[in-house]
């Protein structure tokens, strides 16, 4: 018992020793990339960062509270279409409130949170897989609304996304001209920096929440509902808190994705998108913040990379379009969900732990240490 405590604190210290330099190096590299990379890679990164925000939100729910949700694409859509509705001016055939775009973005995220809160009678009461199936309902109801509520969503053809600007500063645009070390900061560069900044802020917030009393209540519910209740954790309330928090993250990711897409169509926000986010979380190791971000980077970049390099991969490009990038990407996500849960449920997070252990110099174990009683 005592020894177990000792080793774990030693591991924790080793973790901290590595964490700071790794974070600094990663930060510098991420900030420097727009100075060298071209548009393709910057867009790839922006989409990955936006998706990572959504993945962190789902990770809190699935990995830390043990609740399954397949409704993530619904809350992403609430954020995206909420922003469009709030910021577009009203016209003959479409609704809009014409709010200033920054206010619209903030209110759209709050709307997604409200939608999550409105689901709390079910999110609080239903457990684990039951919630997973119940949340399917939101995806299908959402899809129905997206296709039929034409004044709101533009129906089948979708709707343009108004620009986000603060005063005269276009956050994802070109005005006013800016440059860094002689490199002009246009759409792609700004997209990279803005999504990266928001991802960093939301990640820090998620880590703080998970380390707080709330985060410990989440873990207690996941590890044993009855024990948690006996300790005074209000299970239903914390479950709905987690669900609402995850829908806020999804809403924020949805707003950013919409801004990056510039035009959104309903078929994007379907059940398969929810499964993609689930794949991000599972690939990342279910309960790890860094894992979810890595999983998001992998899952969101994969189809774009396959698209770009499909000619170079034998059997994919050319006439045999049967094995197109979408097919390969789907087989890979599905297969990775199965294989990772089968061989290494801790996913990419476990790889990081192993790498750290391998790099930390091991002290020789004293001969007189016997296994703890």
């Amino acid at each position: 018992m005592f020894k177990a405590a000792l080793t774990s604190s030693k591991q924790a210290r080793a973790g901290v020793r590595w964490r700071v330099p790794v974070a600094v190096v990663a930060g510098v590299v991420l900030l420097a990339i727009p100075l060298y990379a071209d548009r393709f890679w910057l867009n790839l990164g922006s989409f990955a960062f936006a998706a990572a925000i959504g993945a962190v939100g789902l990770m809190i729910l699935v990995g830390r509270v043990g609740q399954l949700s397949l409704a993530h694409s619904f809350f992403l859509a609430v954020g995206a279409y909420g922003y469009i509705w709030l910021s577009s001016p009203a016209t003959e055939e479409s609704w809009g409130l014409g709010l200033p775009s920054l206010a619209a973005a903030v209110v759209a995220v709050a709307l997604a949170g409200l939608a999550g809160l409105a689901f709390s009678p079910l999110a609080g009461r239903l457990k684990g897989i039951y919630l997973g199936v119940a949340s399917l309902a939101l995806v299908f109801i959402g899809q129905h609304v997206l296709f039929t509520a034409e004044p709101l969503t533009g129906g089948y053809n979708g709707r343009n996304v108004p620009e986000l600007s603060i005063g005269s500063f276009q956050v994802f645009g070109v005005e006013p001209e800016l440059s860094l070390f002689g490199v002009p900061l246009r759409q792609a560069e700004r997209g990279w920096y803005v999504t990266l900044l928001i991802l960093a802020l939301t990640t820090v917030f998620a880590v703080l929440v998970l380390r707080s009393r709330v985060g410990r209540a989440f873990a207690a519910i996941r590890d044993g509902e009855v024990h948690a209740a006996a300790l005074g954790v209000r299970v239903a309330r914390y479950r709905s808190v987690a669900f609402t928090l995850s829908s806020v993250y999804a809403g924020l990711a949805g707003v950013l994705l919409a801004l990056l897409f510039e035009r959104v169509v309903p078929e994007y926000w379907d059940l398969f998108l929810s499964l993609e986010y689930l794949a991000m979380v599972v690939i990342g190791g279910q309960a790890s913040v860094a894992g979810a971000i890595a999983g998001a980077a992998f899952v969101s970049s994969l189809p774009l990379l396959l698209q770009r390099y499909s000619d170079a991969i034998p059997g994919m490009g050319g006439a045999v379009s049967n094995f197109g990038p979408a097919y390969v990407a789907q087989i890979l996500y599905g297969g990775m969900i199965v294989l990772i849960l089968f061989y290494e449920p801790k996913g990419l997070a476990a790889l990081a732990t192993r790498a750290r252990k391998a790099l930390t110099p091991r002290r020789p174990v004293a001969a007189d240490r016997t296994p703890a009683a």
Partner: protein
Amino acid sequence: MAQLLSMLVEGASLGAVYALVALGIVVIYKSSSVVNFAQPSLLMFGTYVTASAYSLHGLSFWVALPLGVAAAAVLAVLVDRVLVARFRRTQAVVAASIMTIGVDVVLLTEVDRRIGSQILTTGDPWGNEVVRFLGIGVAEARIAALVVSALLLVLFQLWLHRSDFGVAMRATAEDPETASLMGIRLGRVSATAWAVAGALAVCAGLFIVAYPSPGLDTSVEAVALRALPAAIIGGLDSTTGAIAGGLLVGLSEVLVRGYGEHLAFLGQGFEEAAPYVLMLVVLLARPAGLFGIREAVRV
């Protein structure tokens, strides 16, 4: 009136088909506490085997059908034995259920690729005649679906309540540990449950693609997925519930489509969302489903 009657018959027929798929989900849940999200893909896979044996390889329906049923049953058992069994010891049922989502994605993607833009028929013997009675006309295939499904459901209930295996399965659902101590082999119980679920899914798939549907194409999986709300509406741990849930889902879908012009304010095509709305309403009133037993914990 005649319109309502014909809708009720059609809804019941579609509902009985959903009940078959939902029953598979319930049987798997009772035997291993795993929600099998791969059920729609088992349906697609088995139905594809049957349809391609008939349409592409020229086998007769009566050869193609057992082929499809057997293929889905064998695949289901493989999924259970190779993948899901690993989680049985640790009781990680959420992880096991998420894994079935992965299986579903892989299987559906591959079946979709093989189907492509084709519409395959199974060569079923019901043809496209319409039977008239009581002043209404109903497709023969719908009557066949209703009769055959009802027969399968009755047989299944008898099997579950009368046979030794049924007793073993119900004992496992009640308390796996005690059942195991009594000499019931849990692995065998769950493998049988998966095999039955696979076979039932293909029987249902056959009727989903029969007349008046043009045949098997990639849109069938969205139909098959509605078995999940059916299972939840009835209660995941109740076979009676699966039948009730299937019927409710089938009826709601057909009635919403039939009265579409009165429900125009809900938008066109609301019938596809109706089963899910129904599920939310039922869950709000009864979180364990209509026939489900609410889990009580004694400390």
